[in-house]
């Protein structure tokens, strides 16, 4: 089992439904978020390209946040999901500094919080909240170990990229371009 998320930048309109859905699903306090939208503009008027996309923890194979965690609170769980054990987290922030994607934040209760791929929903056979609400259906989620899964097929057939490949983290959030 190797979970992965795919976001089709050709369809994403940057509406932020994924952000609100994550907040309400995971009780993320107002003022914080586990996922967010970025906008990149290239070129000059009127020869322009615009990319909108939803970002979050990349659930890296080679996760710097896990490597640098002094207490072992950050770890890689089933399906490659990178998780934080809040009661073991001392809130030192080393993981926040080490993450090339700026995907972690200090929860007001003192521990570090981040995207869990909604593991509690996966347990019920549901998709992560962000994927389940996306009005453009630009988000996909599944198991890369299964060659017939939607995510495996998409990566086989569509041009894609990951973020900050130079960091050597081997992310598991992919972007169709």
């Amino acid at each position, binding site marked *: 089992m190797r979970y992965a998320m795919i976001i089709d930048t050709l369809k994403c309109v940057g509406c932020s439904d994924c952000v609100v859905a994550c907040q309400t699903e995971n009780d993320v306090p107002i003022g914080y978020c586990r996922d967010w939208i*970025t906008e990149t503009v290239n070129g000059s008027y009127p020869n322009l390209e615009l990319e909108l996309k939803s970002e979050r923890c990349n659930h890296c194979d080679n996760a710097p946040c896990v490597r640098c965690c002094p207490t072992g609170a950050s770890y890689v769980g089933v399906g490659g999901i990178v998780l934080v054990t809040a009661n073991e987290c001392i809130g030192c922030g080393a993981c926040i500094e080490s993450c090339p994607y700026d995907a972690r934040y200090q929860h007001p209760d003192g521990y570090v919080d981040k995207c869990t791929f909604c593991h*509690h929903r996966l*347990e019920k056979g549901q998709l992560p909240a962000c994927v389940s609400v996306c009005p453009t259906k630009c988000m996909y989620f599944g198991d890369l170990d299964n060659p017939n899964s939607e995510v495996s097929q998409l990566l086989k057939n569509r041009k894609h990229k990951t973020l900050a490949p130079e960091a050597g983290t081997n992310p598991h959030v992919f972007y169709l371009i």
Partner: protein
Amino acid sequence: MTTSRRKFIKISALGLGAVAASTTAINMFGSNSYIDELVKQNVSKKFKRTATYCEVCFWKCAAWTYTNEDGEIKKIIGNDDDSHSYGRLCPRGTGGVGMYTDEDRLKTPLIRTTVNGEQTFRKASWDEALDLIASKFKGIKETHGAESIALIKHGAPGSHLEHLLKAFGSDTIAEPAYAQCRGPRETGFNLTFGSWVGSPEPTDIRDTKCLVLIGSHIGENMHNSQVQEMSDAIDSGATIITVDPRLSTAASKSKFWLAIKPATDIALMLSWMNVLIEEGIYDKEYINKYATGFDELKKHVSQFTPEWAYGITTIKPDVIRETARAMAHAAPAVIIHPGRHVVWYGDDSQRARAMAILNALLGSWGRRGGFYFKEAAKVPNFPAPAYPEPKWGWKEIGEKYPLAQMGITNEVMKCMLPDKDNKYPVKALMVAGTNITKAMPNKKLLEDAMDALDFMVVIDTMPMDVTGYADVVLPECTYLERYDDIRSATNREPSIAIRVPAVEPKYDSKPAWWMAKQIGERLGLGAYFNYDDFKEVIEWQLKEMGTSLEEMEKIGVKNYPRKSGPMYINEDETYHFPTDNGKIHLYSQELKDLGFDPLPNYTKHPEPPQGFYRLNYGRAPMHTFSRTANNPNLNDLKKENDLWVNPKVARIIGLKSGQEVWLKNQDDIISTFSIKVRVTERVRWDSVYMVHGFGHQNKELSRANGKGINDTELITKVFTDPIMGGTGMRGNFVAILTENPYKNTEI
């Protein structure tokens, strides 16, 4: 659009002791008992779900409200069975929970009073507020007639107050959704095809091969099913052509982005007609069979070559030809989208006509991938006496505009101004569900009009700016706390949805149906409100429709089979368009007879003088009008608007992203608040852009107050559409002030 994400928080003690002690690991996430326990707790969470449909915008998507064991609303999720929204909500629908939790909500009825010479509001009981309204209404009816009481409305609360007003003898009713929004397109399409576009637009985007958007920002406007279908169209490889001076989200997803000079769209469309006809690539069979006035149209557009249009629009002739051919190639599966907020320059009905004519030339009306024939389920009216016949109403007030099909808000407001010759004096105003001081331009007219009123009531869930002008403010509970009218959606398939309260109304807020009934009974109109609870109305209606409240509470949505016939024109038969002669009117004799151009013409519109920029405005996907700016969840995504400025302009004036500026318009009106600059290539050098709906003045809106600029206050020049009375708002120009104009003023 990037969400602000971080706040430095001092590390405090962990607050998770209660759940941390568990040892019953079920090894779901890597032998970590703590996480496993959290997951287990989360999985076993019990939610109750209650049927509703959304009221954060006007699309009315069916959803489920999830409440936890403590009775708290936790989330709102789309109803999978809804053929109107395909089971998904937009960010505003998901964030609708913030409308309920917002601690700044109106909490009790308020009555204007004077304390030490200062006007203020005092809290009042419902009885006191309702008695006051009833006595004022009675007095105005006796002196001036019930017609002198007007209603300006939007959304679900509006329909309950409309029933009250009509029962009392007034149809002096209008809504910004017409003259400030989609009115011109309804008139333009009605003149051509004999039917309105309506809401939602019956655009067959799902099956289209070519979608043409002219200043329509699908993706920034989150018109739910339109956004979803555009995404499907992208998947299936449809050609998208976007005409917009700004690189909108939709423009960035388009094969062709035509970065047009603002206010020249009609010239482009005339040249498209020219290419389709000169090259003989229009749908000849469809036009021969269904249209009248083709010869006049052909003669009219023969002069409007792409070379002619190039000089006006800045779109190159070969691009005009290539895009016209792309449309013809896709025809009839092509959509020239009618747009929604289309009150721009005052010739808007004519621009809508040009869109309708292009659709006709491409044979797209009534064809798969073009426009389908929509259908809605009929909801029977709950038994009530017939309304009395008013002596005058919205029609008479708008009589100057011969093709107005609904009340014109600005004309209703003008009837409030003191004027001896005014045949239609409006003395009292109810405002329900709309923040008219932001929805309508010409703030001075609005303020003068409201000032002249004898009495004004505002009904809202939030202390929007308009509440500050009221004599009585009534706090409405949110859509999550009440029964309401049945939603009947007009789509490919008819469907209905119901709204059931998930929780009791918070504070001392009440549903609009209750307010209407209470006022009605005080006015002796009890026969019009023959029920104790609105639930009884829905129960009766649902039974008439072959279902029941009990069933609907379980399913939320019911889809009905079509009864009106096929969705598209049957190619073996001759379809009769609902016009006077059953044909499409390319040439409009009706317009000719009324003294208007029977075929659309390009008119040159004013351009910004030196040092000024055209003020363009639009939508952000996470906000609706001005109503969501204070919603804690949606405010978190976007707290204020920013001013998009082209880098060339930024260099000249010396502006940097994030810099605070003020705006002054052509009439020397200066923005109340400042706005932050966003230097971006996405906007042209002759215009600036901002998202509508910010710059709230009411201090009761703790999150939204003073954040960003209210575009509407800078729209003081209105270009009125002579055909239907729409208020064109895109001809205002602003200068950018880098110095605080209020620095010597005490506020």
